[in-house]
């Protein structure tokens, strides 16, 4: 298996570039002596993921982050997207181009280096998050063949999401009480339907025959790092 093949078929990507020296501006100068926010998330959509990851990591490393755990995940997006950075702090979306905080300043430099915003095709979403508070599940992410195909907040009313899997129709049901389940599926065993509903951040449901998976976004409050079953 070649790296590129792996990249296209999985939800992770393999950067091939060195992180060293990619950032023209020294982030230390932007953030020196400033405490980072307790709770933030960064989502970088880009077709230059190697460079983006290196830049963001360099920025975060230069901030006083050594006591924090920063979660990193990445997903391949399908189709045309606007490459840019989304920055949330304590659950609120921050316009980093106008904000005065240290992280925003660093992100402005990174956006300039990556030539953002701009249109791009089949980009990668690199997601960094750090949260000091327990939050409710926020929404769901739906993947097909390891590609992120839809991201949605939990609805006010119960809502059905119709998808086309490898073996035919798949219907996901999102409920107003922040749960999601496979309501219908074209696979034979219906294992995914039998798994019931999930409602905690970090939980996943998968229909392997149809190669469709759904995960609940937000902070994992179940208190476990992994589940044996």
């Amino acid at each position, binding site marked *: 298996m070649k790296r590129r093949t792996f990249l296209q078929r999985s939800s992770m990507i393999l950067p091939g570039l060195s992180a060293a020296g990619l950032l023209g501006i020294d982030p230390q100068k932007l953030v020196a002596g400033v405490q980072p926010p307790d709770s933030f998330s960064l989502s970088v959509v880009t077709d230059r993921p190697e460079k983006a990851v290196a830049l963001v990591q360099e920025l975060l490393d230069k901030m006083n982050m050594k006591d924090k755990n920063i979660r990193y995940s990445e997903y391949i997006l399908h189709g045309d997207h606007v490459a840019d950075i989304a920055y949330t702090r304590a659950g609120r979306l921050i316009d980093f181009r106008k904000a005065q905080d240290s992280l925003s300043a660093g992100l402005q430099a990174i956006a300039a280096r990556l030539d953002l915003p701009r249109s791009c095709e089949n980009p990668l979403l690199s997601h960094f998050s750090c949260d000091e508070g327990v939050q409710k599940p926020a929404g769901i992410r739906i993947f097909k063949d390891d590609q992120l195909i839809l991201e949605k907040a939990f609805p006010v009313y119960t809502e059905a999401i119709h998808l086309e899997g490898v073996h035919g129709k798949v219907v996901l049901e999102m409920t107003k009480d922040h749960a999601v389940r496979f309501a219908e599926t074209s696979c034979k065993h219906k294992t995914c339907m039998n798994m019931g509903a999930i409602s905690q951040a970090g939980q996943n449901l998968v229909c392997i025959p149809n190669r469709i*998976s759904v995960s609940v976004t937000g902070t994992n409050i179940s208190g476990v790092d992994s589940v044996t079953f």
Partner: protein
Amino acid sequence: MKIFLCLFLFLTGSLCAAQTTDSSRAQYEVKVSKILMGTVVETTARYPDITYCKEALFYAYREMERVEDLLSYQKAESEISRINNNAGKTPQPVSAETFAILQRAVSYARKLNGLFDVTIGPVTSLWGFSDPDGGHLPAKADITRQLKDVNYRDLVLNTRDTTAFLKNQGMMLDLGGIAKGYAIDRGSAKLKEYGVTNFILNAGGDMYVSGQKDENTPWIVGVKDPRKGQELIARFELKDEAVATSGDYERFIIVDGKRYHHIIDPRTGYPASLSESATTFAATAEEADVLATYLFIIGAQQALNNNFSKPFLIVDITGKQVTNEAFRKLPGLQF
């Protein structure tokens, strides 16, 4: 830009106090999941360098793919397929790696009185739970006939020329009960080789847990309730150990109101009927995988009677949770 903002408004952060082995840098928790070996393989690894960690993960997943290619009877080019295709005909030379796995498989079979048996292939292929569209109730006469070809003693392993041979033409190897665990061990070894020592590698619920989440925080593992979807029936701390669960709820069919699942008792050719799930531990994921299947088949009462030495949690067929003293002594255990 508006579309972009809508798309990512719901991405939120997550928490963990952390201390890194490299105290001067932030610790990143890198998560990867990929469908492999017919299941979802998810890895959570902690390391101060995302790029390096992802490279290690790439090679770990590649290693697991290699193991799958080597041991799957469903892949026409695998060494196991070659042994199966030459059953009753000629011994087949195999790699040292495959030979060693088969030796260990026979050793497990002897130790567990044949309740783990990699020659179960003729029966599992009848049930078809591993096929993409599989899973059906075979005729009793077919099971009786095929069961005659299930016997690990008829797998001949010749150490002089590392050949493997199934004595009878109808025999067939199915390493489904051991290959996933072995793949987890190989993937874990690859991560360690790269210096990534704090991780959980979980393949379809069987996992190896390495190191800690951080200097002061252990990894926490939960056990899924076999009948209540995503609810947990226990949680505990784990470090440098494997845990595996066999359950009747992952792959099954319902015929005339009766559940038929994929864990076949080699004595009867039918799904084992004493347990809903069995969880146990071992130094390797391979051994944990094998022992979980064994415990599932023998059931809670026999596991207690035999004084099974490793910690276990068995949910019996009535839904009762049975544990041994070793399980009840697990650090951080909560029900």
